[in-house]
């Protein structure tokens, strides 16, 4: 199986995620985009592990991917909490309104 396919998919997802982070107003949507980026990395790791290094003893690729999934979940949790708190204080979840501090 060709390796470049999963890699390009990962790259695509990653860049779509970046687009979302930059262009979406709603903070929850931004968080979703972040998730896309993290998942893209997992595709890379799994593809490398299973296509290039299937016999690696430490199974680093899979483990890395699993750790990332866990951490990503934690990040989502914390991120949503932040967004929630933001909403409580400011009644908005639009990221581009959050610009009290500048310069």
């Amino acid at each position, binding site marked *: 199986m060709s390796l470049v396919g999963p890699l390009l998919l990962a790259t695509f997802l990653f860049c779509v995620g970046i687009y979302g982070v930059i262009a979406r107003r709603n903070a929850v949507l931004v968080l979703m985009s972040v998730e896309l980026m993290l998942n893209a990395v997992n595709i890379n790791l799994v593809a490398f592990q299973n296509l290039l290094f299937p016999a690696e003893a430490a199974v*680093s690729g899979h483990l890395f991917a699993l750790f990332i999934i866990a951490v990503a979940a934690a990040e989502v949790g914390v991120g949503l909490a*932040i967004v929630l708190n933001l909403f409580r204080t400011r009644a908005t979840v639009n990221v581009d309104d959050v610009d*009290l501090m500048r310069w």
Partner: protein
Amino acid sequence: MLIDWVAIAPEIALTITALIVLGADLSLRGEAKQLVNPLAVVGTLVAIGFTLYLWGDERSTFAGQFVINDYAVLFKLLFLGSLLAILGISWRFFAEGRYFQGEYYFLLLTSFIGMLLLPSARDLILLFIALETVSIPAFVMAGLRKRDLYSSEAAMKFFLIGVLSVALMLFGMSMVYGFTGTTELAGIAEAVGEGESVPLLLASVMLIFVGFGFKISAVPFHFWAPDTYAGSPMPVAAMLAVASKAAGFAGLIAVAFIAFEPLADVWAPVLGVLAIVTMTVGNLFALQQRDVIRLLAYSSVAQAGYILVPFGLAQSGHLAVNDAAIQAVLFYLVAYAVMNIGAFGVAIAVNRRTGMRSISDYAGLSQRSPLLALAFTTFLISLGGAPPTVGLWAKYWILRAVAVDITPFGIALAVFLIINSVIAFFYYLRVIRTMWMDDAPAGLPALQPGFNLSVVVVVLMFGTVLLGVLPGLAGNFADVVTLAGG
């Protein structure tokens, strides 16, 4: 496989402390909750004890993922010392502000567990986990003043930029794994050294640096720093500015000088240019600031630029230069911790009751509290790098690294460092001037910083001067750094 418990004793001590703090917070009520701070202090002291026990030792455990050597121990001591100082300046701040004391201390300790791991980590996965352990509690702590618009905004920005950077870093790490088939730093170094350097590999290295660049707030990954420092509770800002930054550098050293040492000739110039841009931009922005915390934030950006300079000097296979560079980074971090935590401490003391934080609010501080004014002056002068303070030696070590093997690029870095040091003094002096040369507005009471805060500030001030006179006290770095590669 046997686990070397001694090697991870400091981390375990801190973990247990964190859990005790959490439990205590749940069981204590009202004023008694303030006990968590001394508890944390005790735990930190225990951890320091363990760490000191490890001094001079060389250990490796978890299949080589975790090593103990003097380099790591020194970094751990730096973190634990910072932790002590931050606990000191947190005491009144959190007690009086009716913030979530127990949770705060728990999160703080957790964050420091991540930091303690960083200098010992010799594996990309562990590095990543440790880095996240530093970051995620920090995201929360930045937003701890929940009802404060600025605090939640700070947390928001910090979080978003943080995860974005981590994602970029992870992308890079995944690619590196694809090239090398391993996540061990030593294995990566081996593979990288043997194989030819494909553009994608180099790009991946760069992406990994981005993650650490975020932590150390290097330009252009620095945007969060001023906003977050200004919005966060001040002890958290101090933690972010000092300990978190040092952690970033610990990781960066591991990645740069161990894993990608064979590629040093490629990344060194890039990091060098990054250093120049960082210090220049940081200083230029700082010139504009009227808010002391933002000023310190931009100043810390600039300081990150200085600390990046030695990375710009690295050369693959040139042990003398690389050693000198690591020495410079280490020493600068120690010095930076001492002076910057001190500066934040003073800012907290001034801000604590009155909410004052603009430079003009510091007018006549010398009359309101000579001690604070003197301390702040010392810290600022040290940040600028003038004797008799430790800041001079910090710059000295960088210039020394330049001088070990003089190259045109090294000279350029030195010149930029010098010019920027002078620019930096423009704004440091502005604060100093305001404190000493302007009159305080009528009717302001004398400032009475709390006992803990005073102790921390005074200790750090004396530390700044003492290390300025006898820099050798900060460790004999010549013996330490050669172990960084091990």
